[in-house]
């Protein structure tokens, strides 16, 4: 029950600032300690407890992952475009970094279904190529 309340609190306060599932996925992944896999959120932990906050964030992370897997390719491309614009990085630098580093691979929740994760990574790969080709078209270069 506490976890459910904490998850609702998180959705209402922090996650409401991120309208896109992609942004929520990246945000929640960034709140996770790479060494322990535990999530940290001081505000949420002070209102509930560290354990409850961690569990609630894991729930919301899984939810964002499910929502993103359920998006069409067109929607994913639009979300990536929106996310790219929100980072205030140059699109060319952003696309180079995302294609090279593939940061989305570490952004999925632990114990995600392997096929769903594989499907999402594949969709990210295609979406990046589509965005890159659009960028090239705008700058007058040939398609990727």
């Amino acid at each position, binding site marked *: 029950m506490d976890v459910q309340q904490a998850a609702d609190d998180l959705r209402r306060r922090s996650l409401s600032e991120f309208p896109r599932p992609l942004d929520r996925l990246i945000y929640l992944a960034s709140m996770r300690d790479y060494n322990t896999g535990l999530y940290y959120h001081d505000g949420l932990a002070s209102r509930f407890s560290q354990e409850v906050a961690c569990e609630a964030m894991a729930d919301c992370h899984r939810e964002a992952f499910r929502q993103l*897997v*359920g998006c*069409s*390719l*067109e929607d994913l491309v639009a979300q990536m475009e929106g996310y790219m614009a929100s980072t205030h990085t140059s699109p060319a630098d952003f696309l180079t970094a995302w294609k090279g580093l593939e940061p989305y691979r570490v952004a999925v929740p632990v114990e995600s*279904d*392997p*096929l*769903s994760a*594989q*499907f999402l990574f*594949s969709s990210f*790969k*295609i979406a990046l*190529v*589509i965005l890159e*080709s659009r960028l090239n078209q705008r700058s007058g270069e040939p*398609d*990727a």
Partner: protein
Amino acid sequence: MIQLISFLLIGALLLVSLYSFMRREQRAEGGSGALIEARQALNTLQAGLLPPELVGRIFARGDLEYVEAKTSKEIRELFLEERKKIALSWVSRVRKQVLSLRRFHLRSARFYAQLSVRTEVALAVDFAALLLECRALQVFMYVRGPYAVPRMVGSTAATATRVCKISEQSLAFLTPAYAGRMGNRAARS
């Protein structure tokens, strides 16, 4: 002399009993392993591979139409190649888990589940059809791509869901606590 023969006979009987007892123990351990493997296969199928939302997304024609309408030939080729990989991976995972469930039904299910002969026959037919469909899907998708046989994808998912429902009944007694006890027993031995 008669006493010696009696003792030898009793000793031999004891040895035979001990040997058959050990064989039974080994069978029971194998059985618990098969049960846990079947439960895992069932979970993977029901939660990971057969949810209609995921199957619908993998084989969504809308994505293909979007790519065909909005992108270049190279991107279309990349898209089809990527979706083919995912589609083949899906079929191969479904087939692997179905084989695992079939192993359970062939070897162990009768010891634990009270399935009628009719249900067992229907299940055997479903397993055979499912494995055949998976092989056919693999061939079609490999040759003609992920969107070649949408109806066959639907019917494979439907048959697999039916097989899962029957298997679920056979494994209904295997609660998490019971599975944990069996797992511990198998780990100890």
